[in-house]
């Protein structure tokens, strides 16, 4: 699982800094080893917190680097050892891990907070389970669920605006907010502007708001007539009206269909064939990448491109086609034009 995670990360994060990528990997391994070994070496939080708090306000690169060195320091009792560079190779990190592992504090506040801090500033893409475990260990003081529950179906671009955001020193004091729920797969990159709050809650809020506004914009394009209305309430109104009108239309048409149903039977096959023909001639054809799922294959045989194999159908139906259908043909052609136009909103 870790390998797949790592490979996924490396695939999708090719554009990222190497250091960030490795930070992610370190964090993943970190958490995995947390799970596996459940080290419980206790370090006094009083010792840990002021020193950890020192690292707040720095670039996260330095932050983690300092945490590495800090852990070593705590363990060995010596001064900070910065010789463990954050180089591109993995060995130093593994070395770090082996050391940090043993000094894994289940004093989870600080560690959990630190990890979460760096995680949320950087690694929005880590798997949920690991993170949730870290969180539970952190006694769930901060209940921020930014994108930690994400699945990895979509592309995961992680962009940390570290120069702008600073790890807030209030993380340890933050109380859990009631319920944030972001579980989407796409990410909105949030940049904290000058003068705006940079704590995690507001960042997450802002990210959420931007996501929602992006979706509203998309809906605006979809629903005709939304351009004139401004503001979310108005747009939502429009959307609601539109959906309602569409549903009513469908109902009405289905009622009509119910009435007409008996008459449709004979010409239905022929008509549907022509319908498809019209679609494929009038509309730009998008080749279906996968074979379409057809319920009645014999009725509507399709070749790879999705156009109908008319030669198969027509001979079978030649006998069943009656005279009225001839007039329907001409009618249907014109109607198909209108129906195809109906696709273009």
């Amino acid at each position, binding site marked *: 699982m870790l390998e797949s995670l790592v490979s996924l990360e490396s695939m999708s994060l090719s554009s990222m800094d190497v250091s960030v990528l490795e930070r992610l990997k370190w964090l993943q391994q970190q958490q995995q080893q947390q799970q596996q070994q459940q080290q419980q070496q206790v370090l006094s939080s009083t010792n840990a917190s002021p020193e950890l708090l020192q690292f707040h306000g720095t670039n996260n690169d330095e932050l983690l680097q300092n945490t590495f060195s800090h852990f070593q320091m705590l363990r060995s009792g010596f001064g900070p050892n910065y010789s463990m560079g954050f180089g591109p190779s993995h060995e130093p990190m593994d070395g770090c891990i082996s050391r940090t592992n043993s000094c894994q504090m289940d004093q989870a506040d600080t560690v959990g907070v630190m990890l979460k801090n760096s995680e949320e500033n950087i690694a929005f893409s880590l798997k949920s389970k690991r993170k949730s475990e870290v969180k539970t260990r952190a006694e769930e003081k901060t209940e921020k669920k930014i994108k930690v529950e994400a699945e990895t*179906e979509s592309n995961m671009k992680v962009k940390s605006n570290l120069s702008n955001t600073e790890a807030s020193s209030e993380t340890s004091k933050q109380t859990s907010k009631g319920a944030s729920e972001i579980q989407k797969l796409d990410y909105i990159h949030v940049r904290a502007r000058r003068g705006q709050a940079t704590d995690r809650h507001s960042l997450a809020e802002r990210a959420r708001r931007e996501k929602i506004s992006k979706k509203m914009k998309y809906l605006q394009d979809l629903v005709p007539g939304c351009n004139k209305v401004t503001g979310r309430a108005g747009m939502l109104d429009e959307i609601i009206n539109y959906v309602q009108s569409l549903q009513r239309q469908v109902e009405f048409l289905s009622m009509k269909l119910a009435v007409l149903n008996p008459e449709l039977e004979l010409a239905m096959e022929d*008509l549907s064939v022509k319908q498809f023909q019209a679609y494929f001639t009038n509309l730009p054809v998008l080749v279906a990448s996968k074979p379409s799922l057809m319920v009645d294959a014999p009725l509507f045989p399709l070749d790879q491109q999705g156009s109908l194999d008319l030669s198969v159908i027509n001979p079978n139906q030649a006998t069943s086609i009656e005279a009225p259908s001839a007039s329907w043909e001409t009618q249907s052609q014109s109607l198909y034009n209108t129906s195809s136009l109906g696709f273009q909103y």
Partner: protein
Amino acid sequence: MERQMINKKKRVFSFEPTKLPPSEVFTRKYISHLVPALKKLNMGKSSPQINQLTVKREVDKALALSAQEFAWSRFLLQKLSSSNNPTTTTSSSSIQTQILERSNDEDGEIEEKLKELQKLLPGGEEMNVEEILTEIGNYIKCLELQTSALKSIVQDAT
């Protein structure tokens, strides 16, 4: 916390909800589902009212079957199958908790509207705000396609 757990169970809704199917694929599927069903209906004679209901249900079923990549289609199918067997569906926690959080920022109007939207969308009861907005997009698209398909069927018959 409960909501969280519920969401954990139903984590994946739509696969790629923003990616819409090309119109022809949907329409083809739709017609291929609907037409045979209608023909089957024609076989058995039933009263007009029942006929209408069944046609409506077939229409909805065809819609749901043609758009199976979306979450609302699954909910729609559930609803349809449950309407065959009259069992009550339990509605889980509504949007209220989440929207309430936002009503501090914005008007309560928006909350109301979102609730309405939630009712319109099949399965909307169990989605949160962002999911609803996403799903509504592709629901609208599929409704439009369905409408045109039905229109063309009906018009050709008259």
